[in-house]
């Protein structure tokens, strides 16, 4: 239990992840489902970023005034890549939703059961 309290940042990402998962499972609107997926992605980004936190750490930029210890630069670089991929998948999913609306006049997943 004490370990969980020390890692409260990780626990916050878990809660955020489950909120996103709730939207993906429980909401019928496709746009809301997609936003839930985005919340889940953000939770993963926050989790990986939290692994790079260093108490009292400086930004990982060398030059005048920089001092040890530095925050971990590797998660920042990885998540920058991840954000761009998340943007790409969101854009593609939104355009597919636009096409679904144009074809069937609805984006409620329950109304889309059985349509061709």
């Amino acid at each position: 239990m004490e370990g969980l309290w020390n890692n409260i940042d990780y626990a916050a990402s878990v809660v955020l992840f489950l909120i996103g998962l709730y939207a993906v499972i429980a909401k019928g609107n496709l746009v809301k489902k997609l936003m839930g997926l985005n919340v889940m992605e953000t939770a993963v980004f926050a989790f990986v970023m939290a692994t790079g936190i260093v108490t009292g750490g400086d930004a990982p930029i060398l030059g005048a005034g920089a001092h040890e210890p530095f925050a971990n630069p590797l998660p920042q670089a990885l998540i920058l890549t991840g954000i761009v991929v998340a943007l790409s998948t969101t854009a593609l999913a939104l355009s597919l939703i636009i096409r679904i609306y144009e074809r069937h006049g609805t984006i409620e997943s329950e109304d889309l059961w059985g349509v061709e």
Partner: protein
Amino acid sequence: MRRAFVIALLVLASVPLLYGVGQLPPIGSTDNPTYTHVVPRYIQQAEEEAGAENIVTAIILNYRGYDTNGEVTVIFTALVAVLGVLMITRSDSGPSVPISPVPVSPVTRFIVRTLSPFILMFSVYMVLYGHSSPGGGFQGGTIVGALLIVLSLVTESADVQRLLPPAVKVWLQPAAVLAFGVIGIAGLLLVGSYLAFPVEGDLVFLRVPWLTVIEVGIGVGGAVIVASIFWAMEGSA
């Protein structure tokens, strides 16, 4: 009923996840496993080996350059896919997406127009100084893309799109991929392998210009791609 079931399921799922994160090493220590393998080398030698004061930029464009090259290809492919999905000939019978009837407030329009030169200046600074200060191509490019989208929302979208004629746009959209290709082949010819940066010798002065070329390519390409995706979706509305 269904909602209660989903919430119960999620609470059940949270138990192993929270137990797992409770067992992880505490946040904030430099003894954490994420900090002990390759990171010390990045921090000690990034400036010497990669020529960038910003270690994140050094990792993105030098140590993990192939990864970033693939990433800009992913976002360009996403643009191609979005255009493909939205541009194919559609049946006329389907309903179109309704547009919000609320007019744009003149206050909003004035503030956006007044601030836009400063936003543009800030993003150019972020792109050009990404190797030695916070920022970089993706960040600056996204700001320009967001600026183009906001301008499209508060003014006539066609006026904003006229800034980028189609003949120019098709060359700016793959700018990031093209910049990586040019620098990659330059590395192949001058240093010996694709996307290699000179570490020592007479060519070391080339590192900062090469970083800047890639950053500008990523910035321009990212901005145009983000705005093009928005315009494609808007055009189908």
